[in-house]
């Protein structure tokens, strides 16, 4: 078989770059450590531009395991951008608090490679391996601040629970293989020819009559599939931190170095959702009746638990952890809404999901970068420590407020427009109760976001001297914060071009369309 290696040059280049950074950092120990950070950021930026330019409108397939289409490319660019912002926000932080910067950046780059292959996978084993490479990079990154007990605790919890959930997930995949006899998502090649055995076709053709008619279950529900789906959803639920598989999230978020928290909450979530979306639309859509109830219940629980727990938090990182759990609930609505009367409507759900994902991630990076800038200066991350920030650093307080208002779904910002479209799709696809629940949940979230904003604007700075002095933000952080705030405004005020691009890319996830 001829393998067209030119299709996966971005992944190969990035993997090579990661090894290069890691190895040269070991070899050239006399070079200033922060060079590796700037070098990684530069490399990511160059690769981002080249990928965006050269792989536009590609629609091909690498060895029948990686789809190189617009969907993949959208996420390639997206992950590279997230990694870029994570690296920028990491430079000062790592300089102050971490050792061995080369390895740190190399791990970020490696995780990015695996995310890119994860979004591209159209075969279970490739997807699983990508997911594991990503998770392993994260286990190490979360514990990278190895002299800090919180960092170790978070890493250990994350790894133990992560390993357990991976096992469940793999078991689910093996059951799926047992039912369908294949690991390929969908058989339709880019050139439109039906090829080989594949999951989608097997699930669609599965004859309901093979079930014992005496069993008290609906005719389109297969017991084996139910078990497989429970295991798969549990595994994926862990990766996206959906309730009740969310327990690791607050500890990992709090313990991890801040740039890693940023990367984990933004890229980790985005990659898991890209995988979730491709798997559930390309392969498992014909079996929608067997998973939709499960995902719907999890989505509802995630929204409720995330928001209710967030109200009680006093630590900003933990607050953001629970807030990100709540946001996962909204995103899961998009997965549920894939189960629609027509394929066009399923595609609407996929489009809305990706749009909201991008809007949410941009906002989340903004908040975490702002938090990093604050933490670099003060070394504190409790909500109450933000007191008087509007006096000490008005620009940072302004950006924080933008981010938090956007997360709460207020207009002008990304959160409003993207959430509006996502909930509308839920209504359109007959999940009225879930959409209404999402609206209510995001109303509850306003309360805890306002409490953070209140600390910044209502109170005077506390403490004396250094603790209440004005301070400035270093240029790289200020620059990336400004770009991110611009993106949040742009997505809120003019999302049409991105929406169109996403709509074009998600069409490829529904081969029958």
């Amino acid at each position: 078989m001829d393998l067209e290696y030119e299709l996966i040059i971005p992944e190969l280049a990035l993997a090579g770059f990661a090894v290069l950074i890691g190895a040269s950092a070991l070899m050239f120990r006399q070079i200033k450590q922060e060079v590796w950070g700037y070098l990684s950021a530069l490399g990511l930026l160059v690769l981002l531009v080249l990928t965006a330019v050269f792989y536009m409108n590609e629609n091909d397939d690498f060895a029948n395991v990686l789809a190189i289409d617009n969907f993949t490319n959208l996420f390639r660019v997206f992950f590279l951008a997230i990694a870029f912002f994570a690296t920028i926000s990491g430079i000062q932080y790592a300089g102050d608090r971490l050792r061995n910067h080369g390895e740190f950046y190399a791990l970020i780059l490696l995780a990015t490679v695996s995310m890119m292959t994860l979004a591209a996978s159209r075969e279970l084993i490739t997807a699983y391996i990508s997911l594991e490479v990503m998770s392993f990079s994260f286990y190490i990154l979360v514990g990278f601040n190895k002299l800090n007990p919180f960092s170790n605790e978070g890493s250990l919890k994350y790894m133990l629970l992560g390993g357990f959930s991976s096992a469940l997930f793999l078991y689910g995949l093996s059951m799926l293989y047992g039912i369908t006899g294949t690991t390929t998502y969908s058989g339709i090649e880019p050139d439109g020819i039906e090829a080989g055995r594949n999951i989608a076709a097997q699930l669609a053709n599965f004859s309901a009559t093979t079930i014992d008619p005496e069993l008290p279950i609906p005719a389109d529900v297969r017991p084996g599939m139910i078990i497989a789906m429970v295991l798969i959803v549990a595994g994926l639920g862990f990766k996206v931190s959906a309730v009740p598989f969310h327990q690791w999230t607050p500890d990992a978020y709090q313990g991890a170095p801040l740039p890693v928290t940023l990367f984990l909450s933004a890229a980790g979530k985005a990659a898991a959702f890209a995988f979730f979306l491709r798997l559930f639309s390309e392969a498992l859509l014909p079996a929608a009746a067997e998973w939709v109830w499960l995902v719907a219940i999890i989505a509802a629980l995630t929204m409720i638990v995330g928001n209710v727990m967030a109200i009680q938090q006093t630590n900003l990182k933990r607050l953001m952890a629970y807030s990100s759990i709540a946001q996962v609930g909204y995103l899961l609505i998009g997965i549920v809404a894939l189960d629609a009367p027509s394929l066009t409507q399923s595609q609407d759900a996929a489009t809305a999901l990706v749009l909201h994902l991008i809007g949410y991630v941009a906002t989340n990076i903004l908040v975490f970068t702002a938090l990093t800038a604050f933490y670099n200066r003060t070394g504190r991350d409790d909500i109450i420590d933000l007191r008087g920030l509007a006096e000490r650093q008005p620009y940072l307080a302004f950006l924080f407020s933008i981010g938090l208002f956007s997360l709460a779904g207020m207009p002008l910002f990304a959160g409003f427009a993207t959430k509006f479209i996502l909930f509308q799709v839920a209504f359109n696809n007959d999940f009225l109760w879930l959409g209404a629940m999402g609206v209510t949940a995001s109303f509850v979230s306003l309360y805890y976001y306002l409490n953070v904003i209140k600390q910044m604007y209502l109170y005077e700075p506390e403490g004396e001297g250094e603790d209440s002095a004005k301070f400035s933000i270093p240029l790289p952080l200020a620059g990336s914060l400004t770009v991110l705030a611009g993106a949040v405004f742009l997505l809120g005020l003019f999302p049409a071009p991105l929406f169109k691009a996403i709509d074009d890319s998600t069409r490829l996830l529904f081969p029958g369309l």
Partner: protein
Amino acid sequence: MFGELLLVLLLIPGGTAVLGLLVPGRYGNVHRGMSLVGSFMMLGVSVYLFAMYDYGEGGLQFDLQYAWIENVGIFKENGISLHLAIDGISAPLVLLNGLVAFAGTLISWKIAHRPKDFFILFNVLVAGVFGVYVAQDLFFWFFFYELAVLPMYLLIVVWGSTNKEYGAMKLMLMLVGGSVLVFVGIFAVFTEAGLGTFDMPLLREVEFGKGFATTFFPFFAIGCGVLAGLFPFHTWSPDGHVAAPTAVSMLHAGVLMKLGAYGIIRLGIEILPAGTDLWMPVILVLGAIAAIYGAMSALHQTDLKFVIGYSSVSHMGFVMMGLGTMNTIGVNGAVLQMFSHGVMTALFFAMVGSVYDQAHTRDINAFGGIIRRMPLFVIFFGLAGLASLGLPGLSGFVAEFHIFVGTVPVFPLFAAVGILSAAITATYILRLLGRMALGPLNERWVDLREISRWELAGGLTLLAPIVAMGVWPAPFVDRIAVSVLELPGVEAIGGALANLPVVRG
């Protein structure tokens, strides 16, 4: 006609806010000046729009439409568009916002604490309110509706007084909680219509079934009703108004509460007319309860701002009564009352602010005889009060007369309740004036100074329309009546009544 004017109306406050971001905070006067110039331009544009609205023709005018998202995903033709237009109902409300925003800027000249942030948020608030009155697309309508609520929290918490943390959080959560219902209603309408568009003129042509309309009408009516102070969802209003700084109270009681009543007309009556049969009488009854309950509560209060706050609840109750009649005279009266109450309550709050800044108390019983020190204050406050109790010759009379005339044929009992609460209004306003302004001068207040030039200018801006509408209501009635007649389900009554001088001008 020049639809671009409506866009200009949004761009002026928006642009002022963006410019404000760029100017450093230490130049307080630059921020004040920019805001003043901006709000003066807005006033000019809104007066022009009001004057040029052609009531002979009626319907939507100054129509302007830019596609925002269409033919992608769930959106079809005209999916979401920035569709701006005004009709005879929104024209006076646009004018109202122009007047109150200008007066509010004048009154806020004295704000010394972080003027930069204040004026940025103030302009965002004004832009949001203008947006709601001119948007003809459900997405943007709701966008602006939320935008108007967005800056409230910070405005109250940073610049407010008296229990501000509680008042601000309560206000914010109740208003956004109400908009959850509106949110759900909008989604349901979009899905039920199945046109893939949020364009309001197109949705108005859809005939929603009786069952659907009856189910979702309360989502709009209660959701918007929270903002309009609909009983029993009015409790944020007195607390919020007391906590808010002067200019924000003015905009809030003067304009923002009207957004709610306006929403009931735009979303409820216009889009779901089949739901009005069942629900509008309920609104009328709740309005009558709010009218009498607000008036009774105002009677008990000793804090000046609480008196005005409860009086707002009572007057918004009249608006709800007018809407609930579902006949031309009553609905006309409701819109007239929205305008009249807007300018009058803004004038109230402006004057209360000026005395509170000097006296640092708002306890009515602590004052006495201040007419000897602040005659202008008493004149403005007194005229606002007289308008509020419905003295002929001022705006309140025209509006309340319409509402009562409209209510008598449908619910005579509740018309009586309304008239009774107007009488109670007279009691508390006159008692208030008597305690504060007249009698011997309390020694504590010999140092009180007259209101400043800025407050005088703001007061005159607001007093002019009160008197104008009182003596010559025709320009208002002409514009409102033509659009009220076009509302679905509103019964044209009148006959002889329609030819009364006060109705025809």
